[in-house]
């Protein structure tokens, strides 16, 4: 301010008023943008919205069909043939996809470790139906002639699980086996859960 003339005439070196002002403007624009970044935090709610695969199955929950013409009614043991599989939910807890299980019936002697034999009942075993790769729901590929060679497959990226050996991964990108869950057949043919999942369920990311 005092020496305006000299500053104008001199070669502009060091911090001039103009450079200072431009610097302040740029810095404040930068600061505004940085502060706006906090918006991104607000836009990313951390509250669970139904995903995340935390099962709410309790022991004693009754199993109901999740799919097909009998959807919603109790799973009936007598309708299960050797080599069959169905998708089932615990009664009243169908809104949580993590609760979906696949019931498989095979000859009792087919099961070997690491299957938890004590959690099966009369050849019926239950595994989580959520693929451990990216959360698709697994399907049953039935071999009618040789029921014991049927297997569980996730059609999304072709992960294949062996139900007779604790649903271990036979092929495909799934990183870990499907978790088993205990079931028990009651006198009237309906089924109940008797344990929690034996391991983590859902995608492992």
């Amino acid at each position, binding site marked *: 301010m005092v020496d305006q003339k000299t500053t104008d005439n001199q070669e502009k070196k060091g911090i001039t008023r103009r450079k200072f002002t431009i610097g302040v403007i740029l810095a404040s624009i930068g600061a505004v943008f940085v502060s706006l970044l906090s918006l*991104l935090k607000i836009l990313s709610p951390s509250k*669970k919205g139904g995903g995340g695969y935390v099962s709410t199955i309790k022991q004693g929950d009754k199993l109901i069909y999740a799919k097909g013409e009998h959807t919603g009614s109790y799973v009936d043991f007598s309708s299960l043939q050797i080599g069959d599989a169905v998708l089932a939910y615990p009664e009243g807890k169908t809104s949580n996809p993590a609760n979906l299980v696949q019931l498989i019936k095979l000859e009792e002697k087919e099961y070997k470790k690491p299957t938890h034999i004590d959690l099966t009942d009369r050849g019926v075993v239950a595994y989580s139906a959520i693929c451990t790769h990216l959360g*698709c729901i697994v399907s049953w590929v039935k071999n009618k002639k040789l029921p014991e060679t049927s297997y569980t497959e996730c059609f999304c990226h072709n992960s294949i699980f062996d139900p007779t050996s604790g649903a271990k991964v036979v092929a*495909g*990108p799934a990183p870990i086996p499907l978790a088993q869950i205990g079931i028990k057949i009651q006198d009237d043919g309906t089924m109940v859960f008797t344990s929690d999942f034996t391991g983590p369920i859902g995608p492992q990311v």
Partner: protein
Amino acid sequence: MILKWLDERLELKKFNAKFLTKTFPTHPTFLFGEIALFSFITLVITGIFLGFLYEPSSKMVSLFGAMVPSAYASVVRTDLLPMGMIIRRIHHWSAMIMIAAILAHLMRIYFTSAYRKPREINWLIGLGLWALAMFAAFTGYLLPYSNFSVTATSIAYYIAKSVPWIGNWISRLLFAGDFPSPYTVPRFFFMHVMLIPILLLGLIGLHMIILIKQKHTEPLANKGRKESEGGKQLIGIPIWPEQMLISIAFFFFLLFVVVLIATYIPLNPIEDYGPPSPGTPVMRPDWYFLVVYGCLKLLPGDLAFSILGGKFTPETIGGVIFPGLTILVFALIPFLDRVKKPQNYIENPLHRPFMTSFGIGGGVFLSMLAAAGYIDVLNITPTRMIIYTVGASLAAWSISYVLLHLYNKEKK
């Protein structure tokens, strides 16, 4: 009369002299960009129609006695309208054609080295347009909220989640919480109909302004011609009226083709997929995502490791790192293959053995990965497919390089 009135106010003559006399090259490959642009216009028009009918919500409503998400119900109702299903298919097919046209355009630029100085910026903007178009397609996937939509989107959710360190946060930002959350559909709707189209429009505008400023690259025939022979002048036709008429005719021809395809080839039959339900259908994404899909199929599940607390899973490698690296390679091309002086002539692909063979090898690599999406149909094991992929791309690369090299030697 009207023209005169407008001219006195808007100086149309100046505009005419500045923009409309620009020359457009006549080679048909220069139309790829136009195909992309026209598909975008078709997408916007059909999108407006669909926007009137769509309900962005996953609340359960009753449809013919069954409880389904209202987004799904509104799309089923759209399909039942006269022409409704056709419009929806035109929308989807246009998206596919747009991405294909962008790719073809990109290949034309790559093989003729039109990305070189001074056109690097437009190359990068073009890549951005490509990425945005894919993102638009991805957000469009979820909207019908069918069994297919939800499965495809949940795969993307876990890919987003697998980003090391910030994956949880990114996935929640994109999907408005953990998927499926009631807020996901409204957020995707907003991104699909507002955010991405606006970004696309802005970038397309920028792309074209820079194009008009820099002009097209000139055909080789113009190289070395003296001014008296018509050199320093683009060989081609002026934008107005010739190119404009060709473009308009071409737009309607393209629209005709799209409508024809949409009429006879079904796409995304949501009535077949049904609303979200237990049981995942056998499904594959649209072709432009097959590369990532195939990559995810090939990577073994036990490929996980962690660095500094960040978890790297096969999904991180196949779904995040690999596409990221691919885009990075594309983005770096003009900076690796650079020239000192501005280059305004296109080059004959046959005269640049390294770049052309690299392009062919890379193209084969990506195509093989896309084919890997079908290994279950082709009955090939992942290990063997990896060997095929690497082998085929290396072979394509080296063979084309040797052939081009020999060709150029002979010429000299």
